[in-house]
């Protein structure tokens, strides 16, 4: 018998707030079509959900029915997801304004996608896992193909839909096999049932492997990465930022929680396969990025490589591994939001994603170019940036668990990655060639909200790189236990 108490509702309040905001926004759109009102409504919804986190924290840790759990770990990632959703909404405003057409629903779907991610990081049961993932995915199909006249958007949307639906089927079949064998869908109970013995290991192994396929697709790790470059290129820039951060971050947080519940022994049979996936992701991402001329594709391949780095921290396991994953995810979120934010601000009716679009950017828009440069350096992992600290913690976790080979490969890959990050960076300092200067299209008008979001993210990134102590303390107390 399931009973909900007031305490349960209080603990659920961040999710309730964002769901209520979605419904409210839908009503607003029905009666009053205005992009600005929709934006304010969405921002208010996410801010309200964020403000509910301390209220909910007073009840943590708390299991809410069988499906959801609210603990410090969930609170940490909820905060991260809400901040990212807020930033994407801010960045999208100026971009959508230049796109034209009816834009209000964009914010509605963005809210729903954020709610899906929030459900994912709170889930403690296959049902909530699946529902959160699907709310996120179905919202993303809509967001990717949102600009009505974009042929690339339709292509990206269809590619994502087919592959995401197929991977969801894999995930579900894996869940069904595990349920058939264990008789429970709760993460927390699985370990004890497995320890009880008398389960057929083969079915369990196939089930876990199929879950890995589904999750690996969402994370775009090699060999499940083929969709990523096309979808990153075809989707509107703010949506690409959302896919790179919220979608992947929520799934990774869930992956860590799932295996923390099941126990490290469950990962052991998969260790060689997972290590191979991590290595393949690093090499595929970094080597294929070398040949790209499109900035969004470069960032897509770079994010494939970053998921490989994260898998190293995941494989390291333990509390140091969890700390490294959390810190790396925060650094990855902030840096990617900045990088795609710059692309968003530069994009007008056409996406500013060819590397040539960035020729001489520093001489035309020095602040924007400096911001982009900082993001690229942080993605590469130059000291004094957030990305460096993230890589440092991942390496530390890897070395602590004696994953020497993975650690060495990580360092080698970091060096390869400098080449293509710096290629984009150098392009910004080149002079525009004579005669062609007139051909460079005029830059879109200044978007105040986008610039404000970028400035805040930039502050956050510098702070994380120069003075990471407080964040590490927070992560240690909230995530690593």
């Amino acid at each position, binding site marked *: 018998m399931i009973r909900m108490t007031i305490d349960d509702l209080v603990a659920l309040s961040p999710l309730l707030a964002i769901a209520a905001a979605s419904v409210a926004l839908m009503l607003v759109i029905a009666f009053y079509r205005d992009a600005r009102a929709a934006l304010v409504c969405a921002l208010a919804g996410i801010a309200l959900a964020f403000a509910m986190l301390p209220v909910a924290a007073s009840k943590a840790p708390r299991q809410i029915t069988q499906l959801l759990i609210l603990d410090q770990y969930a609170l940490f990632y909820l905060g991260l997801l809400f901040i990212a959703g807020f930033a994407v909404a801010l960045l999208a405003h100026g971009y959508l304004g230049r796109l034209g057409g009816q834009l209000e629903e964009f914010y509605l779907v963005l809210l729903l996608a954020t709610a899906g991610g929030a459900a994912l990081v709170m889930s403690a049961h*296959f*049902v909530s896992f*699946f*529902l959160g993932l*699907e709310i996120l*995915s*179905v919202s993303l*199909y*809509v967001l990717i*193909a949102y600009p*009505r006249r974009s*042929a*690339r958007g*339709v*292509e*990206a*949307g*269809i*590619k994502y*839909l*087919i592959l995401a*639906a*197929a991977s*969801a*089927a894999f995930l*579900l*079949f894996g*869940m*069904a*096999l595990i*349920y*058939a064998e264990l*008789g429970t*869908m709760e993460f927390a109970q699985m370990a004890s049932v497995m320890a009880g013995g008398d389960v057929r290991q083969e079915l369990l192994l196939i089930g876990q492997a199929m879950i890995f396929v589904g999750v690996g697709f969402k994370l775009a790790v090699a060999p499940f990465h083929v969709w990523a*470059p*096309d979808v990153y*290129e*075809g989707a509107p820039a703010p949506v690409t930022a959302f896919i790179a951060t919220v979608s992947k971050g929520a799934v990774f947080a869930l992956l860590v929680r799932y295996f923390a519940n099941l126990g490290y022994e469950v990962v052991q049979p998969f260790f060689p396969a997972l290590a191979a996936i991590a290595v393949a992701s690093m090499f595929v991402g970094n080597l294929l990025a070398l*040949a*790209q*001329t*499109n900035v969004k*594709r470069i960032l897509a391949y770079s994010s494939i490589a970053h998921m490989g780095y994260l898998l190293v921290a995941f494989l390291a396991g333990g509390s140091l591994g969890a700390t490294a994953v959390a810190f790396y995810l925060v650094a990855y979120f902030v840096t990617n939001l900045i990088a795609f934010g710059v692309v968003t601000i530069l994009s007008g009716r056409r996406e500013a994603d060819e590397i040539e679009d960035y020729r001489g950017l520093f001489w035309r828009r020095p602040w924007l170019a400096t911001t982009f440069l900082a993001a690229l350096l942080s993605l590469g992992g130059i000291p004094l940036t957030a990305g460096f600290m993230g890589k440092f913690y991942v390496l530390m976790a890897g070395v602590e668990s004696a994953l020497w080979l993975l650690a060495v490969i990580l360092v080698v890959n970091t060096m390869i990655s400098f080449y293509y990050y710096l290629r984009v960076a150098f392009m910004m300092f080149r002079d525009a060639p004579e005669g062609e200067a007139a051909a460079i299209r005029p830059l879109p008008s200044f978007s105040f909200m986008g610039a404000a979001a970028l400035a805040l993210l930039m502050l956050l990134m510098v702070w994380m790189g120069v003075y990471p102590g407080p964040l590490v303390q927070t992560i240690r107390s909230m995530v690593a236990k």
Partner: protein
Amino acid sequence: MMASVPTEYGLLLAGTLFALGLIGVLVRRNIVFILMSLEIMLNATGLAFVTAGARWAQADGQVMYLFILSMAAAEVAVGLALVLKLQRQFKTLDADAASRMHG
């Protein structure tokens, strides 16, 4: 009381359907048929959940099937909207036509 079907048979049937759906997704080029093949895959997982629920005499498997059903409906709703956009943009339902991004 009818003799119950062994769990293995149900899972095998579901696995076969799943494989057929997957082959359809990989082989078919018409986008509508790809969506239908995806439905077959999702329904195969539903069957697997019902079978698993029957083994443990729990309602959970059927509840999960209802969730899968509603999620598949949502997915097809968005999918068909995308099919319409594809037809309008490319004047074809061939999935290969919508493959202009390379690199």
